[in-house]
């Protein structure tokens, strides 16, 4: 099971995983982190759609907290492995594309 199962919604999910790669974050922090990373801030519906899917897949998990409005999430070990595999795959794809552009 990989991120490819998320179909055309894999990009927000990937960005959420990348955002959580350096430690737990709540929704607001994830929004800003992704905005810095990509130049575009995901809307709340988009963000929590990805969060829900990732949680269902067991790739992220919420922290127990008293503040229901600012619940932090963190990567699970499975999520960390999946993120690494997906980033490796993207690196290979990007490398191949750049090489072909250079030789064309």
């Amino acid at each position, binding site marked *: 099971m990989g991120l490819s199962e998320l179909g055309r919604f894999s990009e927000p999910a990937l960005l959420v995983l990348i955002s959580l790669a350096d430690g737990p974050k709540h929704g607001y922090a994830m929004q800003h982190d992704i905005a810095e990373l990509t130049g575009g801030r995901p809307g709340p519906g988009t963000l*929590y759609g990805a969060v829900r899917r990732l949680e269902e897949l067991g790739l992220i998990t919420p922290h127990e907290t008293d503040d229901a409005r600012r619940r932090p999430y963190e990567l699970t070990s499975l999520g960390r492995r999946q993120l690494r595999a997906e980033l490796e795959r993207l690196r290979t794809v990007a490398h191949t594309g750049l090489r072909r552009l250079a030789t064309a």
Partner: protein
Amino acid sequence: MNAPERRTGRLHALVLRLYPHDLRHRYGPEILELLETSSTPVRDLADVARSGVRERATSALARHSSRHSSRRTLRWMTTSAVVIAAEGAPLALSGTVPWAVPVVGAVVGLTLTHRCTAKLRLTLFVTSGLLFVYLLPHLWEAVSGEAGRAPELVSTVAFGVALALAAPLLRRRPGRRTAMAAGVIAVLALPSLATTLLAALGHLAHPWQSYWLVMSSYAPPGVDGALVYYPVLYTCCAFMLLACVAPRRRPVPPPEGHGLHA
């Protein structure tokens, strides 16, 4: 809280109601937090509304799919019961009901033409296997040297070979309706041909009419009880073959995307 804030709060609550209850309960407070601190409130509110509608539609589709699955299981059980009854009734009630076999078989065959699933195929194979168990005593008599069973053995082997040849033909061209129709007619003719062979080898009068006479519950003179069964068994097997090689219905692909977002 002033009046504009109260109005905004009501609007947020209203938009959140677009989500199914469980998701609203789980993620609602977090989404509200982002909406209330948003620097682009209109855009974010539209994003939440769009995601809520999408999620509700996905949830409704999932419920529909679950109900559909229950209906499929019920249909499978019902059809299997009909198949077993169609095969078992002639054996249980002797020559009084053979005429009903083609009628029931036709209904079952037509039903299964578009609905034959893996589970149903298993049912068909098991019940068809039980039919052949019925033939085993006759085979044993033939093998042990009792010459009286030779016509039954020969016609049954010929029927089996013809069925085995017909099955790949039907499977090979499931998309061509003319070829499929010709194959179906050929398979339906096999029981009659096999019965004709059986009657001819048994030196019965009017071999070509034997099948129809037997299937109309009128046993020709000189035909014993076991011979009456064979046309029924051939007919059952032919219908089972048609059902088993019927083209499968293509599964409906799941709706694209299950996220809350566009």
